[in-house]
């Protein structure tokens, strides 16, 4: 009987006598007379009869802002003083990057060859197309106009003018695209050694172009359409690829476009003007359509952002990518199932082959990355080709390591497969490894110096070796990026001025890049490529076992010793030892249908 049915008074209740401990009298809930008369609920105020004012959305937003401010425990000044070590580190890293940029810029600017001029004229076009494509992709994924889940529940349900609440979001999205695009445009034109005028022109063109397309995507979001944005995205990608192929062609000396800095400035000015017109025109249309955007469409982007913010705080870029991949899969929802092929590890490899045929998007970036060594050669950046090309290849190969990522981030799925960690990791590296090899072969002419002199390596053979080593470095970096463990918050923390921090947190920032740095050192110092080959083999051996776990190594050693002994016993008994790829059951054991193991004794 529940506590609710206990009463101290009622028809059958007896009052406790003086001196006696009072005991609750249990009354059966079925007796209706035992239940008290339910109190009548009186509604004091009828909400519908109250006077409804017109809500001022601006005032509402200011009210929320005030509440938030009132709850803040630290001022901006206090926060910055707490994080001074991080800020100092950022300042040092930024200074180093700027110094490298200036050095690369002066190297590229000094190059007076035709190929350098052509690259200067073409690479900003490729960067422009890349930024525009990225802006459209991000706009489609996040909104571009978005609202948090809380805003979606509390504000969007109310009879408010959504457009008033969302106008600032629209403006923020357009401004973000403007600033981000301008930054990439400035970086690319600076690195290609363009003149001051050209740098300014490309910076403005890329920024305004990205802002214009983001505004257009917002206008389409209000109209609940996607096909226009998708079509423009495809066209922009095509333009980018064409620009990159032209870079290869001019760097190889096949064609001469005769591009000059002045022409580039004029063309960039046209793009900037078109971007500005689009940003203003589409921005106004988007503003008028803000009321029409569905709530679910708004909060979907908001929840994606909040998930990614969580990953960002942990500096876990792998997790950020996982969230995006998961979102993309959910958007896709359904695929036409295909049966696999092969058995054992082959099945895992062949499933990867099916995957890259089914999802061909990563091929675009991989194809574009082939152009990088040719562009670097065209700009005369010399030995820097190895680290630059390897970093770009790392980014291009990351999507091909999906199996590795899923099988490394949690052990649950990996445990379902009858393979060791090393076997799983090796199998999941086969497809990306082959792609890296093909990439290495495709970029060999750039390393050997087609249309000019070799950038790296004393002989053509050495240069060709460096091309393959760069492919290997890119693959190892992507493998490290996808298989690295997240920061362990259960391990003892390191005390910093910013508070306690797990030791692996800072390393998350450099994962992948560390492998490129290691593999590139011999190239930068002009040593033989064989050093990088040996380094690469050591790194791969380390990555394929997933790091060193002493306990696991000891268990593995014991297991191998046991298997060796049993194999010897089996051979002595006349049974052949199991070959590679066969069942790893020791030869000294036979298994009955019931699974009972029979140990075969020597001489039996």
């Amino acid at each position, binding site marked *: 009987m529940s506590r609710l049915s206990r009463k101290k008074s009622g028809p059958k209740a007896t009052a406790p006598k003086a001196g006696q401990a009072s005991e609750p009298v249990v009354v059966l809930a079925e007796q209706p007379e035992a239940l008290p008369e339910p109190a009548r609920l009186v509604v004091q105020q009828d909400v519908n009869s109250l006077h409804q004012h017109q809500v001022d959305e601006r005032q509402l937003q200011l009210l929320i802002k005030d509440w938030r401010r009132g709850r803040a425990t630290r001022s901006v000044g206090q926060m910055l003083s707490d994080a001074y070590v991080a800020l100092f580190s950022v300042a040092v890293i930024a200074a180093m990057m700027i110094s490298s940029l200036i050095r690369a810029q002066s190297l590229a600017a000094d190059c007076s060859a035709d190929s350098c001029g052509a690259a200067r004229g073409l690479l900003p076009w490729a960067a422009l197309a890349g930024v525009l494509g990225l802006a459209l992709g991000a706009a489609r994924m996040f909104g571009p106009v978005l609202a948090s889940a809380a805003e979606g529940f509390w504000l969007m349900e109310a009879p408010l003018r959504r457009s008033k609440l969302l106008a600032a979001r629209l403006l923020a999205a357009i401004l973000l695209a403007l600033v981000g695009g301008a930054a990439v445009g400035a970086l690319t034109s600076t690195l290609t050694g363009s003149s001051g005028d050209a740098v300014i022109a490309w910076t403005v063109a890329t920024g305004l172009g990205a802002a214009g397309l983001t505004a257009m995507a917002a206008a389409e979001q209000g109209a609940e359409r996607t096909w226009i944005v998708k079509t423009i995205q495809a066209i922009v990608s095509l333009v980018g690829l064409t620009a990159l192929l032209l870079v290869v062609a001019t760097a190889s000396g096949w064609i001469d476009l005769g591009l000059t800095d002045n022409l580039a400035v004029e063309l960039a000015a046209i793009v900037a003007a078109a971007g500005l017109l689009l940003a203003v025109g589409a921005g106004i249309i988007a503003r008028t359509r803000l009321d029409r955007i569905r709530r679910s469409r708004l909060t979907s982007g908001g929840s994606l952002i909040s998930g990614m913010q969580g990953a960002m705080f942990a500096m876990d870029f792998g997790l950020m990518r996982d969230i995006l991949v998961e979102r993309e899969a959910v958007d896709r929802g359904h695929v036409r199932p295909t049966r696999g092929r092969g058995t054992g590890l082959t099945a895992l490899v062949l499933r990867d082959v099916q995957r890259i045929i089914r999802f061909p998007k990563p091929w675009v970036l991989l194809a574009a990355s082939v152009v990088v060594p040719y562009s670097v050669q065209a700009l005369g950046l010399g030995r820097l080709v190895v680290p630059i090309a390897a970093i770009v290849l790392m980014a291009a190969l990351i999507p091909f390591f999906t199996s590795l990522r899923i099988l490394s981030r949690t052990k649950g*799925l990996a445990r379902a497969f009858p393979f060791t960690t090393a076997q799983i990791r090796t199998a999941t590296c086969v497809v990306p490894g082959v792609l890296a090899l093909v990439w290495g072969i495709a970029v060999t002419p750039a390393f050997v110096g087609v249309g000019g002199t070799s950038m790296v390596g004393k002989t053509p053979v050495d240069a060709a070796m460096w091309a393959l080593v760069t492919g290997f470095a890119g693959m190892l970096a992507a493998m490290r990026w996808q298989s690295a463990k997240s920061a362990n918050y259960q391990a003892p923390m390191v005390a910093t001025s910013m508070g306690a921090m797990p030791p692996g947190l800072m390393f998350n920032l450099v994962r992948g890049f560390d492998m490129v740095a290691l593999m590139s050192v011999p190239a930068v110092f002009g040593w033989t490529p064989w050093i990088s080959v040996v380094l690469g083999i050591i790194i791969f051996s380390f990555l394929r076992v997933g790091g060193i776990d002493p306990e696991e190594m000891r268990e593995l050693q014991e297991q191998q010793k046991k298997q060796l002994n049993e194999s010897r016993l089996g051979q002595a008994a006349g049974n052949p030892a199991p070959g590679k790829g066969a069942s790893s059951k020791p030869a000294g054991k036979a298994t009955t249908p019931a699974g009972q193991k029979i140990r075969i004794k020597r001489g039996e």
Partner: protein
Amino acid sequence: MAARTVVLKVTNLSKSYGPSVIVENFSLEVREGEAVALTGRNGAGKSTVLRCLVGADRPTEGTVEVLGEKVSESNVDIRRNVATVIDDLDFFPDLSVVEHLDLLARAHGLDDADALVDEVLEEVQLVPQSGQLPGTLSSGQRRRLALATAMVRPRKLLVLDEPEQRLDVEGIRWLGERLRAEKERGLAIVLASHEPSLVEALGCRIVQLGGARG
């Protein structure tokens, strides 16, 4: 009648996280065709014991052996013989439901796995979702898929952590019948469960965990 083989042997297993002792001196022997249910209140250590059984966690003290082999995550024989459904199961975001099952069956060397995969898919009532990507499944459907992964592969020991979670009433009834059939076929089963009807349907030996706290 011949004695049934001991499939799982746990000897004096203890597990602590820092000063907190979760399980202390836990021993268990499970033979072929036997089902054992670990019961106890929340935090009693059921999941911890199961994680140690499959090698997901290392015991602080004691040993776990499956068919005479010491359990460790790197031991392929253990992976080959032990099918597990515990909470850390992940899915490939870009493979459909049926492709997950197909891949797993093939990885275990089952060349002609189509018939088996289709049968299991039908049994877990995921045929309409066979082409769906895991991200679009409901939590109950994901649970069914997780259970299906344990059924499309060879196994001698089945370790399940609250398998009834997120299943509807009909699903729990099906699970009970399926596990009973597995048990009758000679499979050893260890599960942690809060569902009395499942434990009863399976005819489990019940092991109550008290949770030694330090």
